[in-house]
């Protein structure tokens, strides 16, 4: 289990810089069952690459009815989710496994 966790951590660390270098990538971090930043501004009318990094040990499900997206993100790993192109507006999302604390909003401008 530890080895798997370490491997996942290594994979997350090794892919994170590459993703961060991507111009169109926007990143979210899950820590202590909260999203950071809780509000993320993105351009409207454009396909967006969203990279969600889960720093918690437990898995989380990124879920948004507004964005029509759902994806499970294993503990200590990162996941890419393509969204949009969005009309200007506010799109809320939650971490379904910790819905009380894990909430956020994507604002398309």
């Amino acid at each position, binding site marked *: 289990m530890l080895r*798997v966790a370490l491997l*996942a951590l290594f*994979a997350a660390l090794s*892919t994170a810089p590459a993703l961060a270098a991507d111009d169109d990538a926007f990143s979210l971090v899950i820590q202590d069952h909260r999203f950071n930043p809780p509000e993320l501004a993105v351009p409207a009318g454009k*396909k967006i*690459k969203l990279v969600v990094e889960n720093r918690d*040990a*437990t*898995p*989380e*499900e990124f879920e948004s*009815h*507004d*964005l*029509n*997206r759902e*994806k*499970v*993100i*294993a*503990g200590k*790993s*990162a*996941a*890419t*989710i*393509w969204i*949009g*192109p*969005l009309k200007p507006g506010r799109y809320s999302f939650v971490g*379904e*496994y*910790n*819905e*009380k604390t894990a909430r956020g909003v994507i604002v398309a401008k």
Partner: protein
Amino acid sequence: MFATAVIVFREVLEAALIVGIVAAATRTIPGRSRWLAGGIAAGLAGSALVALGTDRIAAMASGMGQELFNAAILGIAVVMLAWHNLWMSSHGAALAADARGVGNAIRDGRRECSVLLVVVGLAVLREGSETVLFLYGIAASEGSASLSMLGGGIAGIAAGIAVGYLVYAGLLRIPLRWFFAATGVLVLFLAAGMASQAARFLVQADLLPSLASPLWDTSGVLPQASVAGTLLHSLVGYDARPAGMQLVFYVTVLVAIAAGMILVGRPGAQSGTTKRAS
């Protein structure tokens, strides 16, 4: 505890509805209960495996493994449901009449049962793995609070199964004359809805264009998270904000299966050994 029950209920509901409908649709096939139980057991075992391998699946296909995995599972289920409906269209009349045709149908029935096992297994696998991950997260985190939350999880599972059983029992009350037509239509929409979900995953992975995102927005009238929205989502593939590609998949599968059922079900379209009993 209540919140936990609701989340688990939502996950279990979809699988339970599929199992309930498939169980009803195959009521006359001999030995189908064993196959059904086998499918559920295989699905449960599979969901534990999938939950364990979440990070590995996700890492495949440049991080799009999860989407491809879900789309593939849904795609296989669509093909199996289509096969089931075509099979029922050609044998259903004989099975319903409980006539001489049944003897011949039993041999074919075994193949039909294995199809059924796959559909049920995949449904349980897909929803089950998410439930396992969720419950694992609870068990792994807060100490004493987790016990009551696990209780909520069990309550959610029980409630989901109860609804699935109600659907099953309700369908069995339909008079035989209309029964296979009714379950055939239900399975048809089930398959179309799954095709639409598969398309959503492929759009999410950026493997298919969305065509329109969203094509419409009915979240104000009928939110997908509402009880009615969840039920319609599971039964007919309702989506409050679908991508255009989802509708393309939905309509294509709907028309293809319906056309197949009409072609196969026409008198004279059947082979010599399975001619109608009349």
